[in-house]
């Protein structure tokens, strides 16, 4: 394993009943990073995470988790929030958090104390002795998240952590992820919601159809597309139209096109000279969504949008 990496995977392949789910995944997650794995449902994100954590064995390929080739050997310093949340309904919130810590080697008494602190710090002090079954879904997810970090792991793996959460709990989770990263913990999370990755992550992997389509810094993904120019003119026609690039399209009274490779200045001069009468001109850096569409394809983006709508319905 290379120095400075919390997690590394090479050529991970996994099929279920002959159907390939993951077709050769390479990942390298730097220590202390917030790392997003982005892709629609069925892209292979959960299977990848389960292989990385040793819950299932890959058909081929290998992985290393905090320097351990057997992931369970690193269990004490890893936290994992699975996509399908699981808690014992009759347990109190404090016991549930302490139990999850105990599974990772944290003494129960310490786990109970830390659980109380976590609950109080997050405004849930009144729920210390409440059984899980009496909590809302979002609150139970928050409790499980506390259980994931109660033993102060070096690496936290969150599978679709925002799924099913309302806006308040999503905000709380984002805050928590940033706090963990600030404390030096590496955070890996999978999501099908682009703006979470865009807001939180330094690096991302875009995964679709069981393959990594992009792996690197978010800025690099966005820079794969040239910035977008939006132009509004007073004159609808004139010699200035010849200055527009071939890919320019008119949408709602605005011209939109990619920033020319030689910059905006020559075009700007041609537009002025051609009598366009510029009302508005803006150059916008492309968002991660556009980058995702360009990298993973329109169908993957549509699938992500459908997942997001389903999520919103669930949270509501």
């Amino acid at each position: 394993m290379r120095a400075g990496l919390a997690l590394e995977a090479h050529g991970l392949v996994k099929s279920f009943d002959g159907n390939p789910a993951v077709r050769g995944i390479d990942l390298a997650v730097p220590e202390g990073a917030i790392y997003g794995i982005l892709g629609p449902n069925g892209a292979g994100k959960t299977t990848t995470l389960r292989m990385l954590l040793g819950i299932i064995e890959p058909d081929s390929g290998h992985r290393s988790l905090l320097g351990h080739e057997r992931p369970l050997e690193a269990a004490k310093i890893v936290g994992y929030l699975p996509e399908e949340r699981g808690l014992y309904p009759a347990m109190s919130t404090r016991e549930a958090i302490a139990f999850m810590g105990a599974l990772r080697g944290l003494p129960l008494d310490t786990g109970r104390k830390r659980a109380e602190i976590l609950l109080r710090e997050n405004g849930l002090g009144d729920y210390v002795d409440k059984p899980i079954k009496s909590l809302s879904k979002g609150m139970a997810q928050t409790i499980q998240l506390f259980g994931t970090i109660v033993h102060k792991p070096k690496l936290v793996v969150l599978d679709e952590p925002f799924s099913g959460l309302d806006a308040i709990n999503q905000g709380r989770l984002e805050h928590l992820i940033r706090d963990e990263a600030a404390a030096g913990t590496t955070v890996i999370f999978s999501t099908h919601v682009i703006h979470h990755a865009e807001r939180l992550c330094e690096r991302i992997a875009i995964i679709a159809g069981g393959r990594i389509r992009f792996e690197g810094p978010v800025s690099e993904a966005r820079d794969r597309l040239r910035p977008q120019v939006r132009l509004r003119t007073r004159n609808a026609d004139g010699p200035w139209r010849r200055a527009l690039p071939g890919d320019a399209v008119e949408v709602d009274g605005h011209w939109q096109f990619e920033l020319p490779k030689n910059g905006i200045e020559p075009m700007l001069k041609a537009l002025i000279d051609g009598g366009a009468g510029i009302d508005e001109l803006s150059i916008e850096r492309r968002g991660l969504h556009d980058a995702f569409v360009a990298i993973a394809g329109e169908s993957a983006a549509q699938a992500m949008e459908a997942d997001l709508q389903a999520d919103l319905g669930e949270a509501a």
Partner: protein
Amino acid sequence: MSLFEASWVIARRDFIAQVFSRSFILFLVAPMLLIGFSLFVGSAAGNAERNLNQPVVALVTDSGTAEALEAARIRLVGGTSEQSFPRFRTVAPAENVSVQAKALLADQNENYSAVLSGTLDRPVLTGPERIDDYTGKRVRLIVEEARRTAALEGARAAVRGEPVVRDVTANAAGNLQMLRRSMAQAGQGLIFTVTIMLATLLLSTLVEEKSNKVIEVLAAAVPLDAVFLGKLIAMLGISLVGLGLWVGILSVGYTFFQMLQDWMALPKVSPAVGWPVWIVLLLLYYTANFMLLGALFLGIGGQASNIREIQTISMPVTLLQLMVLLLAMTTVGQEGSALVWTAYLLPFSSPMAMVAYGAQYEALWPHLLALAWQALWVVLIIRLSARLFRTTVLKSTSGGAFFGFPRPRRKRADAA
């Protein structure tokens, strides 16, 4: 965290969750109620059935003959039991006894099996052919006893001789073996009963984790072997709590009914290895039996995805346990046959067979071998179950190495 530390975390959670649940009270109370109810109903129904099944013979004789026959019956019953001989009911003779006998046999209200008429010298037993084997033979015995008594009284003679003198010894080989066989069977019965009560619990215990999705959390944190072992330990603890409570309640009941003296008299006939060792062996073999069958049931139950599947599995599992008990029972009173050796060697029947061995034979070293053999199988079954669970339920290609020997670290060209 070691395998045992991880198992302990799982076991503690399961134990507390089960013991402090409301259903645990039901688990504790249900067998007591069941046993009490069975004893009550069994006793009442048994008495009623014995009375119903005891043949009744109509005595259509003169009063002197009837008295002599009744007296002879009472003497015979005194030496055996009330149920050993048919009951007599005296009926005044009519003019035509032959016709009366047939009428009595046809009477649905009285339900006579036979009619005895005539005198002691010329008795006549009227009834169908099928009564000859049981009622007929016993009636003849009563008649002969009545005749012998009448003959002795006629001769004014009496049977001379002193009553039997009792010389009490501590043991008799035949009696001792019989009691030890009973102890062996009681030990087997106890182990079987408690294990069968927990079979469904064991089968369904992993369904809880699967249905509430906790299994993913567990599988990511600890080896599945630890999950299986922890659950087994928890269930064993739960069963021992139950067993302790039931034995405690029974002891209190015994004391309450002043039957303690009877109990104290029992140890005069001890199992071959002695009471203390046998009780320890009983506990050890109970643990081994529980862990063996428990590991198997846990493995089978882990494959089920819901309670309905568990219910479907329960019946074959119960049958399997019965088969194992029957096999183990062959060791009581037998030795050396292939079946007996199978019972000792087959891991699932071995604990119950060895409990019987301890009750009947004094050698201790076979127990050490047997316990080691059973422990080996517990480990094998847990490992196999965990791997099966990983491959079929968690859909992992490989369940992992069967024996977890340390693997050398992969050396990579780009390693730092």
